[in-house]
């Protein structure tokens, strides 16, 4: 079944529909779509439990009791990869989650950014090499990071230097979705105030977080996306136990003074975030990574010397003709977006990309 319409967001209408977008770029229904998520954040903000709650199973086991001897020497940052095969109504997703324990936990954390950047670029480089092969491997596994979920500490004030630096450095390589970890330490008013502070910082520092509204052509999706953007950064509380009542199983976190229902949207944004990550916006995130971020990177890498904006578009068009008509249309759409003033963050992405 060939793709009927070249639009990217073909089925983004409502929360009820779980229809998968018609993106057949990731063939091999047997294995499922390749989807790579990276989790970044300091220790204690709930990355691991987030993953377990997201996949509804214990993907990452709790670590053994930390050794007091090594407590004063923080572990260096490492990349732990977990593969989860998820299936729903016949559609499979081959989800790979990369956890980054050790980020920001040491006394001097300046080297963490470079490590992350190197890792992400390495995945891009692999694809670049693979694409340029004479005989391409049909079963090649794409390890590009499609979305980076960044956990902000719930300080209540504003973004910290670490947060700002990370988003700034990595925003041109990967879609960043900021998330408030341990959001159960905020009351409703505090949460709103913190969100406002963070958004103000994002605007002030022109931080390249993922812009849900990057595609302006699909007006239905746009309305929904605008609503979603009001929730950035998403507040996340993770589940401790599952409680069975007459309506089914409820995921909760229990305190002496009350109980949070994780899936209740009035209490935290976990359900919304899960929906975005695993349901509605998979195609968006993947497409943006491939069409924008990766292409930008590729262009920068292949060009020797200065950045000629016009030249680059022509080169891309020529190459795209070889690959397929749909891709060319997407490209021109992207160029159209770049020319308009809408989607300021998208422009920002280009700017930051070229400013290096």
């Amino acid at each position, binding site marked *: 079944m060939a793709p009927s319409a070249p639009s990217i967001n073909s089925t983004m209408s409502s929360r009820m529909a779980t229809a998968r977008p018609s993106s057949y770029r990731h063939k091999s229904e047997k294995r499922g779509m390749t989807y790579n998520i990276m989790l970044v954040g*300091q*220790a*204690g*903000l709930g990355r691991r439990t987030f993953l377990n709650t997201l996949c509804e199973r214990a993907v990452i086991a709790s*670590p053994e*009791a*930390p050794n*007091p*001897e090594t*407590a*004063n*020497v*923080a572990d260096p940052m490492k990349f732990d990869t977990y593969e989860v095969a998820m299936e729903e109504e016949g559609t499979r997703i081959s989800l790979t989650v990369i956890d980054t324990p050790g980020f920001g*936990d*040491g*006394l*001097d*954390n*300046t080297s963490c950014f470079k490590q992350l950047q190197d890792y992400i670029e390495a995945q891009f480089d692999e694809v670049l090499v693979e694409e340029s092969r004479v005989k391409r491997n049909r079963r090649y596994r794409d390890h590009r990071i499609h979305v980076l979920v960044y956990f902000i*500490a*719930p*300080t*209540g*004030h*504003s*973004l*910290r*230097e*670490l947060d700002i*630096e990370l988003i700034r450095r990595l925003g041109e390589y990967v879609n960043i979705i900021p998330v408030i970890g*341990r959001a*159960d*330490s905020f*009351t*409703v008013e505090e949460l709103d*105030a913190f969100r*406002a*502070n963070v958004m*103000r*910082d994002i605007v*002030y520092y022109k931080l390249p977080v993922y812009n849900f509204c990057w595609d302006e052509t699909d007006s239905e999706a746009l309305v929904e996306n605008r609503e979603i953007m009001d929730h950035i950064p998403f507040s996340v509380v993770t589940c*401790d136990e599952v409680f069975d009542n007459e309506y089914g199983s409820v995921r909760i*976190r*229990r*305190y*002496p*003074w*009350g*109980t*949070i*229902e994780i899936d209740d949207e*009035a*209490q935290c944004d976990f359900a919304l975030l899960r929906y975005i990550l695993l349901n509605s916006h998979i195609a968006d995130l993947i497409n943006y990574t491939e069409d924008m971020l990766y292409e930008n990177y590729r262009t920068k890498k292949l060009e020797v010397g200065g950045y000629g904006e016009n030249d680059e578009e022509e080169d891309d068009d020529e190459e795209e003709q070889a690959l397929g008509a749909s891709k060319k249309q997407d490209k021109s759409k992207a160029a159209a977006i770049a020319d308009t003033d809408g989607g300021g963050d998208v422009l920002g992405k280009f700017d930051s990309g070229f400013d290096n």
Partner: protein
Amino acid sequence: MRSAQNQGSGAIKKKMNGYVGFSNFPNQEHRRSIKRGFNFTLMVVGESGLGKSTLINTLFESKVYPTKETEVETPARTGVEITSVSADIQENGVRLRLSVVDTPGFGDSINNDEAWRPILENIESRFDAYLAQENRVNRSKIVDNRVNAVLYFIRPSGHGLRAIDIEFMKHLHTRVNLIPVIARADTLAGREVETFKARIMADINFHGIQIFKPVSDQFDDPETVADNKAIASKVPFAVVGSEKLVDREDGTKVRGRRYPWGVIEVENEAHNDFVSLRQMLLRTHMEELRDATDVGLYEAYRTQKLLALGHVQDNGVFREFNPRQQLEEEERLHGAKMGKLEAEMAAVFRQKVQEKEGKLKQSEEELHSRHQQMKSVLEKQRLELEEKRARIGTGMQQQNTSIDVVAAAHPGEPVQRMPSKDKKKRGFF
């Protein structure tokens, strides 16, 4: 009342028969303290957003810290600042001059290697200021702004202490009374609090960090002992602060935080350890904290500093000093020194003897070899001479033989020694 005079230790314990009145002394002390008022300096350290200002305001139930206004532009903050806020609080006629020292910027940078240093320097400079005042000629007005306690706020990660926590505590625990608290404890559910506390204490004990804990001594009544034990078991305190009032189910208003899923009450001991912290800090152990600062920490600092400056201790000033003991000590030392000297000299002597022996041996060998040499030379000469003699001897013998032959041929004729080559001629005629 008969009481024996006694100097030094070994005083006789005497129970009073009637009422004299010196048991009224604590009341006098009490009145005096009230008139003078108290002084307490508290320092709060922790990353931004952990609720330090809120907790202070909650502890003292007054707005020591004004609510932070949200700034329009967030300036990038580099390094650690030290700011101080003072408030005069009064309760039941007792005046407290409370100073709170804040450390904004601690732990907020990307590189926090030296975050603890400005704080340590500030604490030590306060000690130095007090030291300078103590040494003044006129000491009537001494202003004491030494830090009596440091509340260190730990992020509620649930795992254990982080590198920055341990680094800070290791550098400061010998200079201040360290009270670690778990901040924003409303994000930890039930068991997580216990596990977290246990891990923190394991880390602290492993690294030998001294934190302030209420201890009971022999004079305390059992109730106080029990209280102290209860408080000590909750260290480090997991606290939540709030200045707002919330309604409970029964309609009463208490300080707390309202969530969509429940209400946490600040003063409910089942919800968090705020009450214990307040009890320890304000109600029972404030004087002990001040005392520990003055007698323990400050004195230790002063001694270190003076020794470093090169002062030497003069023991004669102490009353407990015993001259006989001192003399014995000196004698012992002297004897030890003598012994050492002796040993040294013996060693030197032995060494010299050895050397001399060595030398003599060497010269003996030399002489011996020379003797041998000369002997051999003489021997050679002798042989040579012998040889010569032998040669001469044989030569003479030959000649003798020829003469004999001539003598035999012509007897009676005087033998003329003729050269031997003429022998043959002779023989022919």
